[in-house]
């Protein structure tokens, strides 16, 4: 887009606009994590706690560097489960939200399903899912899909119901085609709400994948943690945990970055000290 007039000179444009806040957020997160690591090291030094209860960060780092292939291969499995869960859960959630918002019978029949899907404790389903879909990736993907479905569907539906009434009036005078109005006005107007749902989904996706792996699996970071725990390899367990945290952070920031890029018109008013 070309820049026009004096209205947007204070706004960072181009790469600065997309990378600026993201990079700064990641930088702050790293500083916080660094502080926590130092605190952790201090606790280990001060208390002299046994390494099989709480290994020092240095010991965890050594454990990580000792078996990077093992950890990364399993991280790839967990990452694939998360991403497939995000894909299916995001798609199903968005599709049900559109159906519920646009089709009256769907509202009556799907709305209860949506609520029930949240009333069932999904974690309690994990053993059943493993029984049905096996020890492989399928049961974990289903688990992640179930856990992601609700925040996406709920947030998008909320957005679809809150379309500015004036826009709908304008569109209704222009056409009688309700589906054209849904497609052209309602759905684009609700995309920022869908983005909020996807951000929540990105944060809960690792939970779904790892719970599935704990219940029964032969691969994945959850499997590594369970396996290492059984053999009192606490350092390896923490290494897997650190890898999972990094995976979760990268997933969240990647999705956040992608959504900002996709919705440049989204009004952004971050909490601002000047308004206080």
């Amino acid at each position, binding site marked *: 887009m070309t820049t026009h007039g004096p*209205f947007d000179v204070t706004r960072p444009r181009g790469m600065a606009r997309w990378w600026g806040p993201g990079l700064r957020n990641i930088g702050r997160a790293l500083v916080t994590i660094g502080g926590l690591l130092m605190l952790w090291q201090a606790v280990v030094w001060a208390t002299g706690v046994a390494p099989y209860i709480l290994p020092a960060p240095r010991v965890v780092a050594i454990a990580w560097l000792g078996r990077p292939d093992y950890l990364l291969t399993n991280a790839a499995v967990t990452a694939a489960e998360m991403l497939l869960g995000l894909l299916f859960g995001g798609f199903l959630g968005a599709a049900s939200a559109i159906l519920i918002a646009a089709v009256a019978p769907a509202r009556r029949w799907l709305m209860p399903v949506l609520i029930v899907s949240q009333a069932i404790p999904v974690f309690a389903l994990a053993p059943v899912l493993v029984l049905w879909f096996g020890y492989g990736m399928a049961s974990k993907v289903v688990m992640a899909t179930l856990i992601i479905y609700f925040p996406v569907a709920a947030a998008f539906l909320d957005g679809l119901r809150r379309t500015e009434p*004036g826009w709908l*009036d304008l569109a*209704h005078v*222009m056409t009688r085609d309700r589906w054209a109005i849904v497609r*052209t006005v309602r759905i684009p107007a609700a*995309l920022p709400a869908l983005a909020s749902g996807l951000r929540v989904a990105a944060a809960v996706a690792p939970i779904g994948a790892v719970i599935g792996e704990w219940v029964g699996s032969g691969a994945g970071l959850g499997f590594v943690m369970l396996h290492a725990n059984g053999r009192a390899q606490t350092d390896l367990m923490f290494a897997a945990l650190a890898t999972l945290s990094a995976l979760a952070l990268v997933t969240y920031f990647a999705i956040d970055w992608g959504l900002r890029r996709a919705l440049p018109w989204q009004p952004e008013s971050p909490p601002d000290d000047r308004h206080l």
Partner: protein
Amino acid sequence: MAWGTPEPVALPATGANSIHVRGAHVSFDAGGGRSGPLFDNLEAEFSAGMFTCILGSSGVGKSSLLRLIAGLPPRRGTASGVVTDGDGQSLTGRIVYMDQRDLLLPWMTVLDNVLLGARLRGEPRQRGRALGLLQAVGLSGWEDARPEVLSGGMRQRAALARTLMEDRPFVLMDEPFQAVDAITRLVLQDLSARLLAGRTVVLVTHDPIEALRLGHHVQVLAGSPARLDPPVAPPGVPPRDPADPALVGLYRVLIARLQQAAK
């Protein structure tokens, strides 16, 4: 001619493009038991090819009348009534509606906003004509900008271009220039008078000067339930100069009528 005592004009409401409202019943429901009739069996006729300005205070039902003509359901409460053209045909699909808010879609460029109607109806988009209209309203070079970078006045210009793009015989305007500054308002009024000439325009406003500037006919909507006063026809051709002494007498009459209605 003494314009201090305007003669009500006989409505020449003939012609296919006149608007006829028959038996309009609209009741509002503000919740908490605050409800009542806005219109009780309201009858109205608006002349073909003319600007009719409906003048009234806030809450008297100006927007409700426009929504009824536009075929939009009331925001709260109920509405019924028959709205036809001079031949008794429905107006559906021949109306364009312009609100006091620009209602530009923030995710579309200015050009795509102007082309919104064609996109909704799946018609071919007449880019060239849209660009011409943007030029006519003074927005050349802004077609690829998003509404967020435009000032309020520029946004309302874009909304006017979108209204003109629809190319409808019936134009309904709900205080379209209320939210812009005085100079922009004059410019937009001139543009509307020029570019909408020959169409049947119903413009509601609470500003007597705007009504006197733009209306071939001016009608006061007042009372509860509201009634339309007989139309008065200011002298001269719109857009009139608001400083024209000939309008001063009419201005006083309209203000007196509005004050009387407010009591």
